[in-house]
């Protein structure tokens, strides 16, 4: 079968091409071009497992590309093909996404109480694949969480392979509130950098002078060394302008990319953070007053995420509460990541950057971007299907797919089934019927009538009108 061959080019290029020339994208010739050429890297992937296909949906790949009415085909939990007119194997499980948008599964940083009841690492041994919190998270579109720094895939009814990557961040403190710690960290970085420099010199000179002694690694902080060698990432928790500035300069000096959580006043030093190549994990709805002792800019800003993004900072978005909060601050908990991201959009963050802030950027922070965070060939088939714009408050996750398996169906679970139920879907079980339909599809797909049918569900056009009203009320509460 053709399906064993993999895409040579990345889906991103293809997707962009498809965007630019939508007519050609549906051309059978284009489809063939996609299928051609097995890439060596992909050939090593397991060529086994169940086929799974999502058909007829609008694929928002998370890379900026959108493929309307396209098919995502996965095998063994890995996306094998994305495009139009794909031949779907007869034994594939097929999910009809007619009228739905397909996004990559969301990545929730620092989420607690989802990956296991008690937390505390060791998720391979404690992951609860049947918990209600897990279902709630899947219903919120979250397919990967990090808890205690460990990236955990939210598999349902399975415990194998849930840990995607063990913790590889090192939490550091670099604050003017603790000047001694600050200078100590400076010294550690200096020592580690000197050692690495000496080591490189030694390696170079060793070729000519064999008697040269290897520089001693004693006294070199292993954590700092791993950061400088890119084996782990430095993670800071900082909100103040001065602390952020300090971290940015430290990072620039020693050439590492810091992860900064909080970064409330990041907008005031965004250019410095951008130059440091920082990642910022922000809570767009977090608020803080300016310190009146200082003349400079300060305090929180609704534009924080937007300004950081504009300055080249990779912005990840996190909710106020990292738990599932059904009382108290419900609506600002981990289940409302897209709404949180929506607030950053209100402050000027491009929608695409907001989506990346809850998908690929947190995936990068966790070091799992090669598997998670966007819909691309070769990546894990973690998809969420919504009845509208991901960032729209009305959109609900209808289906969640993790590793090529359907793990959440809104209509079949307790929580949201009764809210705006979708009309019964056409049965698409018979593969024959499916293929026949597929052949006819390309002609119909872009006709306005079809799109018009989808509108009432999606309502993407209404988003900007609806939002200010809702948001204004929210902000008034925040500030008052």
């Amino acid at each position, binding site marked *: 079968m053709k399906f064993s061959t993999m895409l040579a080019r990345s889906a991103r290029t293809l997707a962009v091409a498809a965007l630019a020339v939508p007519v050609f994208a549906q051309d059978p010739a284009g489809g063939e071009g996609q299928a051609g050429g097995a890439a060596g890297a992909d050939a090593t992937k397991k060529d086994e497992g169940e086929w799974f296909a999502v058909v007829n949906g609008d694929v928002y790949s998370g890379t900026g590309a959108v493929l309307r009415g396209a098919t995502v085909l996965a095998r063994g939990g890995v996306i094998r093909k994305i495009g139009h007119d794909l031949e779907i194997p007869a034994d594939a499980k097929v999910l009809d996404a007619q009228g739905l948008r397909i996004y990559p599964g969301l990545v929730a940083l620092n989420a607690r109480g989802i990956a296991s009841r008690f937390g505390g690492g060791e998720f391979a041994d*404690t992951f609860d694949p*049947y918990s*209600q919190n897990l279902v709630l998270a899947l219903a919120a579109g979250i397919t990967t969480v990090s808890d205690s720094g460990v990236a955990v895939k939210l598999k349902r009814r399975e*415990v194998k392979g849930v840990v995607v990557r063990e913790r590889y961040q090192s939490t550091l403190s670099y604050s003017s509130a603790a000047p001694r710690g600050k200078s100590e960290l400076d010294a550690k970085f200096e020592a580690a950098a000197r050692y690495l420099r000496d080591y490189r010199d030694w390696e170079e000179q060793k070729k000519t002078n064999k008697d040269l002694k290897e520089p001693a690694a004693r006294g070199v902080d292993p954590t700092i060394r791993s950061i400088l060698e890119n084996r782990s990432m430095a993670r800071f928790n900082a909100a103040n302008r001065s602390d952020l500035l300090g971290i940015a300069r430290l990072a620039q000096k020693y050439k590492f990319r810091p992860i900064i959580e909080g970064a409330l006043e990041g907008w005031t030093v965004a250019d410095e953070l951008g130059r440091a190549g920082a990642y910022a994990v922000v809570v767009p709805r977090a608020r803080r007053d300016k310190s009146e002792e200082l003349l400079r800019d300060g305090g929180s800003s609704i534009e924080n995420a937007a300004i950081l993004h504009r300055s080249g900072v990779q912005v990840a978005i996190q909710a106020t509460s990292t738990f599932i909060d059904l009382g108290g601050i419900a609506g600002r908990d981990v289940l409302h990541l897209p709404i949180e991201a929506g607030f950053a959009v209100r402050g000027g963050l491009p929608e695409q950057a907001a989506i990346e802030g809850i998908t690929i950027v947190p995936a990068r922070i966790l070091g799992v971007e090669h598997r998670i965070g966007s819909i691309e060939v070769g990546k894990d088939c973690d998809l969420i299907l919504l009845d509208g714009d991901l960032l729209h408050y009305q959109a609900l996750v209808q289906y969640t797919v993790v590793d090529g398996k359907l793990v959440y169906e809104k209509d079949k679970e307790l929580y949201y089934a009764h809210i705006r139920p979708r009309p019964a879907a056409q049965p698409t079980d018979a593969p024959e019927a499916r293929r026949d339909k597929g052949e006819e599809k390309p002609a119909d797909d872009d006709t306005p009538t079809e799109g018009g049918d989808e509108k009432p569900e999606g309502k993407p056009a209404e988003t900007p009108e609806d939002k200010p009203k809702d948001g204004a009320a929210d902000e008034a509460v925040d500030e008052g």
Partner: protein
Amino acid sequence: MRLNSLLLSLVPAALASSAFAFDLQAIRVGRAETVSHGVIEHAVVLVEDGRIVAVGPDLPIERGIPVVDRPEWTVMPGLVLPYSRLGLDGRAGADFTPEVSPSPEILPRAEEYEEVLSYGITTLGLYPPGNGVPGQAVAIRPKGETLEEMRIKEGAYLKVYFRADARSKKTVKDAWAKVDEHDEKVAKAKEKWTKDQKGKGAKTEEKKDEAKPDEKKDEKAADAKGADSKAKEFVPPAADPKVKPFLRVRDGKMLPLVSISSAADWAHWLDAIGERKFDFALRVVMQRELDLYEVHDEIVKRKCMLVMEPELSYTTATMRQRNLPAEFANAGNKVVLIPRGEDLASHETWRADVGEMVKNGMKREDALKSMTVHAAALMGLDKDYGTLEKGKVANLLFLNGDPLEPGTKVVAVMLDGAFVHGEVRQ
């Protein structure tokens, strides 16, 4: 009637052969819950030497045999409670001590045993305390002056406490790794032994270099020749006492009883045992919300015996009540129901509590088995205990009505053929 003729032929024989002819006794009751063969009205149970000799409706009773004639009584097999800490008060941590038995903890003549005997519990399975793998259960009869008198069977089952955590999983994996280690040791020893045998037996054939693939053939050859040279049987190296119980588990000689409390525990237990094939029973701690229905099909597929309290639970996050014991029993799993608590009162209301499950969808037959023959099966004792059948131990429970009704009282209890409770006039 077949039973009749059998009885007639059997009784004189018994009378003639036995020096203690008076051992034979008959009990005629209104109703017998045989558990194995349904209900017999106007039943006669014939007991001799502590065993049931015959059960049947309206059996004629030879003259001279003492008869207890109580048409208002119902008889059923004595209750078997396989999962109990009754009369024991030891505490322990989370150790790996599979070799331990709770026997040393047992105090014969403890009040509790007499008390539960009067409730009709004629067999108890006592397990050692602690998490991890605390040891093996011992089956006892709750009456006796000494431990020896009470003890029925050591190593009734292996208690395993399992929760979805790193420690539990490591314990299980390590235990089986040790089994593999032992197996390897045995294989090596056997290879060596085979070689030695060959060396002794067949000097003409020099096959010493031949290795494993032909091991079996060599063995046979060695056996044949070994006979001449009076070679001994191969004796495998002794297993570590901590490995032995798991060897018994692997060989199907003992069930591990794995305590879990959620579907997640089940998932991680399966993950921990991997591809290994062995039977195990589940001890499920009943709670108000128990998501075990999530893995119902898997548990049914594996035909696991389940030990649970007779309690209803709810579908998680809802008020939808469900009867998990009935769900599993109806699917064909053997379900053992135990008293709801460790207090004596729970033991007294045990039958009625199980009756509650029948009112909520459990089959009556399954409910009766859950307290008798299934419970015995958990301990590998179902050949001798748990039903009213010929050849089984005469542990009988006499009641003044339906055993599953709350008002029904115990009127007499027979243990090993002797009345130990109730006023019985012959």
